[in-house]
């Protein structure tokens, strides 16, 4: 098993990894396994993020975790120049995008391409990078093709 663990690619983000909780564990385990997992309501079928023990859309309280493609469209974005946190220091300037996922929820995600190549409406895909041996983080990148 250990031999198949992908190499750590972005160790600088370890200080920003949140603690695992009963609510968020499945999300982070999904990223560690190389996939984006979202909660889906068993009653109305809506996907949601961030995780909760109830559905944001209907009275449902039964939610299951599902792997999703996690592709979407840039709704808005910024280019951060200010050094707010050392983890992002070597990436300055970097893009933060508000991504409208095809599955429904919106998420925020960093993108490390040339800022001039990013525009509102562009298609993006998840980019999962390993931060420690057993944790990974979600970023976004332009959808190829």
């Amino acid at each position, binding site marked *: 098993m250990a031999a198949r663990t992908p190499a750590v690619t972005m160790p600088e983000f370890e200080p920003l990894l949140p603690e695992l909780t009963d609510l968020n564990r499945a999300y982070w385990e999904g990223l560690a396994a190389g996939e984006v997992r979202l909660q889906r309501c068993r009653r109305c079928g809506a996907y949601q993020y961030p995780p909760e023990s109830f559905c944001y859309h209907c009275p449902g309280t039964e939610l299951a975790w599902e792997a999703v493609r996690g592709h979407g469209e840039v*709704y808005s974005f910024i280019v951060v120049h200010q050094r707010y946190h050392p983890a992002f220091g070597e990436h300055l300037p970097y893009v933060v995008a508000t991504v409208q996922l095809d599955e429904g929820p919106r*998420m*925020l*995600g960093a993108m490390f391409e040339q800022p001039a190549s990013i525009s509102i409406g562009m298609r993006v895909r998840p980019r999962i990078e390993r931060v420690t041996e057993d944790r990974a983080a979600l970023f976004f990148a332009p959808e190829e093709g």
Partner: protein
Amino acid sequence: MVRLKDLSQRYCIVGVGNTAYGMNPGVSQLAHNVLAIRGALEDAGLEASDLDGVLTKAPTSTFPMLWAPRVAEALRVVPRVTGTLDQAGASNIGLIQYAISAIELGQAEMIAISYGDNPRTGTRASYARPRGDDALAGLFGAPSSYAMIARRHMHEYGTTHEQLGNVAITHRHHASMNPNAQYQDSITMEDYAHSRWVAEPFHLLDCCPVSDGGAAYVVTTEARARSLRTAPVYIEGLGQGHPAWDFYRRGELATSGAKVSGEVAFRSAGLGPTEIDFCEIYDCFTIVPLITLEEYGFCAKGEGGAFYEGSRTQVGGELPCNTSGGLLSETGMPGTQLVVEAVRQLRGECGPRQVAGAEVGLVSQQGGIMTTHATMILSTGGA
């Protein structure tokens, strides 16, 4: 909806006060509140013992529990009505609504409302705090979130950097006539364009500073107001409207709570945008006044940028905005100072930046990432 004129009596702001804005080492959060309230009492010719209510917005930088009772204690007031409202930057208008409700219910008659904080010399961690699980997205600090809104407004309506710059330049021009302002040196479009990027599309000069300071006002009945030494300023209209959801999950990012809040405030005053002589608009970032004026109906949606071009929003123009310099240039305090300036304008105390014939003024406040919004319309009493 009830018009404020239809309540059992009319309500007024009778005293305003503020501490020095900017950097004040050794002045605690408590001191900023106490000194600002004492200033407001002195302004109206009142004593702390005249107060039967103390209401506050919590300091942004630390958010202590039971804050208003501590301010009351420091003033040696045992209040009949007290409390701290959490609408972030909209709280100090929200508290006026609470004060009027308390007086209308017969629970109090003379209520001080304050805000004071020392994020510049104390802790300012809350201003650049990572957003929980979103920290890995690289989103830190309020400028980043507001920049996301600005980008969307630029995309949808063609708003330009120069139009954002006009807001910064106009408010700085007003601050140059305000001895209380933290930034009194006029700026040019070149200064604006060459100020460093913080989070594109925001330059440094798109962002308000982090400031120490306190401001306060006293609300009472028209009957009590008339016996005091300052000219009463009448509270004509109040409104609230709250997008509430976290900014990136809102359906439309280039809008705000100003639409609902403004409609409610205008209806409760029985007035419309054409009757407003000047505005004090919450301007934590340059994009906010553009969106706020659009949503209030001073111009069509998307035309806020064009509205700010030329001299329309300057003192002497058709609708002077942020006559003290606002958050961008007077001080970064979250909104209390805008009410203080509106009252001083309506009392004709503003010297070179005085709006000639000012009889009706509008104040907007908002909090979070355009999460909350409150609107107040004030007058000299003739409206």
